[in-house]
């Protein structure tokens, strides 16, 4: 019997023609490594470059104009660092920065502890409901979380809004990220080492201190840094629960651009960007799946 000859594959490698989605940002590059024919490969590169350009050119413009010696974001006049100097003498800005740092430090510390506990519990006891409870704040639209937290603080607890309410809100949405990172770390580990520790005479607490804690330390560091970046650049939720009188950096920037996008805004945005990027890169060194967790 004659078999029909296998149909030749189109030269263009049409399978890979669809451009990668823009949403995955840093991860979109993974698609580039696939084999593809000449024309298909060209379009793949073109689409990818267009995507990255779309994502990063606005950021680059902000950075560029923060060094522009002109009040207007219109044309390049000359290089200066005076906007950064001006920032240092802006009391409102400094207060907002101090608030942001304090909130980020405290909320990421607390959520690292709570998130680690949640991650350990999810790994060890595998309760069906816990991942749902822990991860919902991560997936929920920020505006919803902001509104519901505001209602909760004001209507249910009758709490006055301020630093404390912002802290609680930030802890709420950070726990899930830490938990996911810790659980991912534990999932890759040989379960029997924890039994071995008990077997060799370690109490549950000694097992945690001597074995579990050192082994999840990279995940804790990564989780802490993630929570820190999430906190320091959060706008939407903070906007709802900040009340009057307490400003964070993103809120301060927002109130400034209501008037005009001044070079000062560009400067503080550039600093914030640099800080966030540094922290994320640091976090991804501790736990490679951090970039995935952030989506």
């Amino acid at each position, binding site marked *: 019997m004659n078999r029909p000859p296998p149909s030749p594959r189109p030269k263009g490698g049409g399978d890979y023609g669809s451009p990668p989605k823009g949403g995955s940002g840093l991860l979109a590059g993974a698609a580039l490594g696939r084999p593809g024919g000449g024309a298909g490969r060209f379009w793949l590169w073109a689409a990818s470059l267009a995507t990255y350009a779309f994502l990063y050119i606005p950021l680059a413009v902000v950075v560029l104009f923060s060094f522009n010696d002109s009040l207007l974001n219109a044309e390049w006049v000359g290089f200066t660092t005076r906007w950064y100097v001006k920032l240092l003498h802006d009391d409102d800005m400094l207060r907002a920065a101090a608030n942001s740092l304090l909130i980020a430090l405290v909320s990421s510390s607390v959520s690292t502890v709570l998130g680690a506990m949640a991650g350990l519990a999810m790994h060890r006891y595998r309760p069906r409901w816990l991942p749902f409870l822990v991860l919902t704040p991560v997936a929920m639209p920020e505006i919803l979380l902001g509104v519901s937290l505001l209602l909760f603080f004001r209507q249910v607890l009758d709490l006055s809004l301020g630093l404390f309410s912002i802290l609680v809100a930030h802890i709420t949405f950070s726990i899930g990220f830490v938990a996911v990172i810790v659980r991912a770390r534990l999932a890759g580990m*040989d379960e*029997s*080492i924890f*039994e*071995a*520790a*008990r*077997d*060799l*005479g*370690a*109490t549950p607490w*000694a097992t945690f201190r*001597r*074995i579990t804690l*050192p*082994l999840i330390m990279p995940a804790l560091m990564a989780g802490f840094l993630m929570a820190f970046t999430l906190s320091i650049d959060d706008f939407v939720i903070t906007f709802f629960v900040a009340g009057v009188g307490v400003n964070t950096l993103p809120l301060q920037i927002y109130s400034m651009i209501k008037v005009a996008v001044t070079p000062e805004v560009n400067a503080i945005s550039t600093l914030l960007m640099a800080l966030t990027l540094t922290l994320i890169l640091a976090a991804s060194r501790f736990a490679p799946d951090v970039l995935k967790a952030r989506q």
Partner: protein
Amino acid sequence: MALLEIRNLTRRFGTLEAVKDVSLFIEAGEFFTLLGPSGCGKTTILRMIAGFDAPDAGEILLDGVSLAGVPPERRPLHTVFQSYALFPHMTVAGNIAFPLEMAGKSALEIRRRVGETLALVHLEDKAASFPHELSGGQKQRVALARGLVNQPRLLLLDEPLGALDAKLRVEMQIELIALQREVGITFIFVTHSQQEALALSHRIAVMRDGRVEQCDEPDQLYTQPANRFVADFIGKINLIEVEVRSSSKVLLGLHATGLGEIAATDARPIAVGERGVFALRPELIRVFGHRESADLKNRFEGVVRELLYLGDVTLYKVELANGALIEALMPNAAPGRAKFHEVGDAVAVCWRHDAGVYLRN
């Protein structure tokens, strides 16, 4: 009094009975093995002895004292895990020091004992290495050293050689025997490898489906299997369906359909007419040319259908008159001789009347 006594131990997982009413004695200084196919309950028993799992019924006594409710860290026994379970963030010396630190020993004593134990397993030069820098055999030794360093009453070993390649496994077996003799600690060893069990153990409990089928010394298990499962599980064996025709004192007359009468021995009183199986080790069968005469009671004609040359021995598969294949193992002891018969040769298989074992169904 036995060091460890297991009394009517039962463990259920849902509807599955993983361990069914198991009772065992393990004496001090013994190398005891739980042997059986995967899923037979041997690891479950080990986990209950270690304290990671609790029995649904029955009890485990160490020196006559029940271990019920005693957490793993307070049981004077250690486990060597199949995956070794070395702590990846500690050095070899750190791993071995761990049980001593947990026991609250002084820094001086810890240093001395770690040094001694490293010497015992020939790893003095690896003290500062991390587990990921070691080979499989070295990890295995570290796991053993860590289990032995605090001189437990009992060392539990869960398929510890399973992850090693064949050559290394044989070397480690020899080391294990020497080590156990040297430290004098009781070993309970779990394995699915009958060869490993026979080579290492003082006594073996053969398990199937949560029950102990037979518990005896290796040579007894091999030559006097209690039933068909044990006979088949330990080593190679020919099983011939038979009916008992006569039984007088130790002499047993068996009849195999299409084959004829088989003379055997059995000290037990056995009823005539009973059906069972005659179990015969291949190395106890002699294969002769069909014209050669042999002064043996059991002689059956057949044709060589297959032969497997194994170097020191040759395995002959001989088809008998009733169509059954019987395996015979003959040493190639004569100089320059690789085999005695060819495929297609007419031969006679013979064995002594006390060579095989009659097993009741």
